[in-house]
């Protein structure tokens, strides 16, 4: 085990993958030469190590970047491409949704697309809604795309390796605010299975299902509530597709209560799927309404007080839990 940041953990995963498999290459805007020099950034230093043949800086052409990944993966390469910020995925969405996700199916299983798309998510940069807009629900609603969203350095490394060597297309969401978060990470290539949620805190009174940066919001809420003897079971989904239904349902069967938490907008967000699944499959265990804590249904604001207002806080989680603890 070594301590490293979330960003370094991602970097280490990329490094291992590039080292191990000559068919792995990276492409994106600034994945080689970046306007940033921070060693905590995932692609830092890789151009120097692997050269411009494998670390490809691209023009500003999101559709072509995604098309590059789809076309090259069909030929047997393992592209790892970057779409810089989540809202830019709109520009790549035809390639990802109508092609990466569907072409294997429509080929009758003949053509494979072992590609990974890294995309950066995050609220709280003051960059506004054209840079900050969590669209994981779009991806999750697209059959044929896997979706990973790690919350800590160990998972970041394990899941990125899992994504790169998964023979299916994977959208890999990186939580930018966590790039500098330190954590223990196994050396080598520790596999973290997709579809296996992590119970990050064991509790009995209420289940919190969450993922990504919001896991830390949940943990803070849990810490505070523990002082009032309310104990939360906090589940970090880690991969949103495939979803680990069992871990989640078992927890709700134990606690009888559910709060779903994410940083994305509430309406039709990923949290709705969690609530709906539980309302069908663990209905008889439920002692209280299912609550969702999510961003209000507005674009991410830029000004500091409004951005703070937008982002789900530990306090909002605490209120939701209290409301259903009765």
């Amino acid at each position, binding site marked *: 085990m070594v301590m490293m940041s979330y960003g370094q953990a991602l970097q280490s995963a990329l490094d291992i*993958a590039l080292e*191990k*498999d000559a068919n792995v*290459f990276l492409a994106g805007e600034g994945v080689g030469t970046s306007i940033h020099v921070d060693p905590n950034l995932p692609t830092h230093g890789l151009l120097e190590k692997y050269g411009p*043949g494998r670390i*490809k800086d*691209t*023009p500003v*052409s999101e*559709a*072509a970047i*995604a*098309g*590059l*990944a*789809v*076309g*090259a*993966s*069909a*030929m*047997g*390469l393992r*592209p790892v491409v970057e779409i810089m910020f989540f809202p830019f995925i709109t520009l790549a969405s*035809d*390639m990802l949704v*109508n*092609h990466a996700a569907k*072409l*294997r*199916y*429509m*080929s*009758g*299983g*003949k*053509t*494979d697309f*072992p590609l990974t798309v890294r995309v950066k998510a995050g609220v709280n940069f003051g960059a506004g809604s054209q840079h900050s807009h969590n669209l994981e629900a779009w991806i999750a609603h697209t*059959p*044929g795309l896997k979706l990973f969203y790690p919350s800590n350095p160990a998972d970041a490394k394990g899941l990125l*390796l899992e994504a790169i*060597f*998964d*023979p*299916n297309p994977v959208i890999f969401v990186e939580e930018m605010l966590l790039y500098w978060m330190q954590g223990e990470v196994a050396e080598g*290539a520790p*596999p973290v299975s997709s579809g296996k949620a992590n119970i990050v805190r064991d509790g009995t009174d209420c289940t919190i299902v969450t993922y990504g940066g919001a896991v830390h919001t949940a943990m803070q809420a849990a810490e505070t509530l523990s002082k009032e003897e309310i104990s939360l079971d906090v589940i970090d989904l880690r991969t949103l597709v495939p979803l680990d239904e069992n871990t989640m349902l078992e927890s709700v069967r134990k606690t009888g209560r559910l709060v779903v938490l994410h940083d994305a907008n509430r309406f039709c967000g990923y949290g709705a799927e969690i609530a709906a699944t539980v309302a069908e499959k663990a209905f008889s265990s439920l002692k209280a309404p299912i609550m969702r804590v999510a961003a209000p249904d507005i674009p991410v604001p830029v000004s500091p007080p409004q951005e703070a207002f937008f982002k789900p806080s530990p306090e909002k989680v605490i209120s939701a839990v209290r409301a259903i603890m009765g």
Partner: protein
Amino acid sequence: MNDKFLPVGVLRKLYSDMALIRHFEDKLVLLAQEKSRVVGMQILANGQEAVAAGVVNALEPDDVIVSNHRSHGHLLAKGADPQKLMAEIMCKATGVNKGKAGTLHLAVPEINAIMTSTIVGASPPLAMGAAFAQQYLDRSNITTVFFGDGAAAEGSVHEAMNMASLWKLPVLFVCENNCWAGAQHLREHSCVENIARRADAYDMPGTTVDGNDVLAVYNTASDMADHCRKGKGPAFLETRTYRMRGHGEHDPCHYMDPAELEKWGLLCPLKTFRKYLEEHQVLPTDQINDIDRKAALIVEEAVIFGDESPFPAAADALNDLWIEEENRH
């Protein structure tokens, strides 16, 4: 026409491919009139056979093609099995894609026709990606992509051309300018008459050829394929041709100018080439007739194969989305 003196074998192959495509699609015209005989829109390339035959025959077997919604001709010329192709068009379990592709999304990787997209303009970036892999893997192959004059208006085509040129990728962009994008005539949807005028904007060679002259297509495509294969980057071939039927078989063509149609009808690529073969005594008439008969026979057999094949099981719809066995690291 044949100023490069191509071998008879090549000329015969070109005619055979064109004949097969024409017969195959003429049959689809009829099948499309019968309820439930084929599935979905039938989007045919009648009048454009010289492009498919001319371009594809200029390629090596290991070269890759990426096609669009009007793909039957490209795939037949590349060597797709007519029976499995017809079965797929009928959405049968024995089709090249187990009935999951239908007419619009045919993928035949065994002949290096790795992908077909019916999203207009999507094929060029896909092809650019495939060509990147060829360059990356240091292969001596190229990727050829077919798209229409309509597709040239999609931004994705331009992104692909810029990236391909910047990285000198071996892509042969073939724009089949058939004067139509759906019911919109070229002059209603494009600000330039010749799409090849765009090639210079991406610093690649671009040429417009008579797309109804199979030898012109073949010769130019050969030169351009050579250019791409030598690592000189992409090239752009525009073939001027005409869509002799509707956009699809459900289209009554009410908006087409009969005079324009008639003019192009006289330029039928098969008739023209047959005349050439006869006049230059490349092939005697009876051999040409034999080729046509053989094509008709192949098509008949394909229809029988398709008709006799079962539909896939309903629940098989759940398969083929994911690769289950994972290639663990």
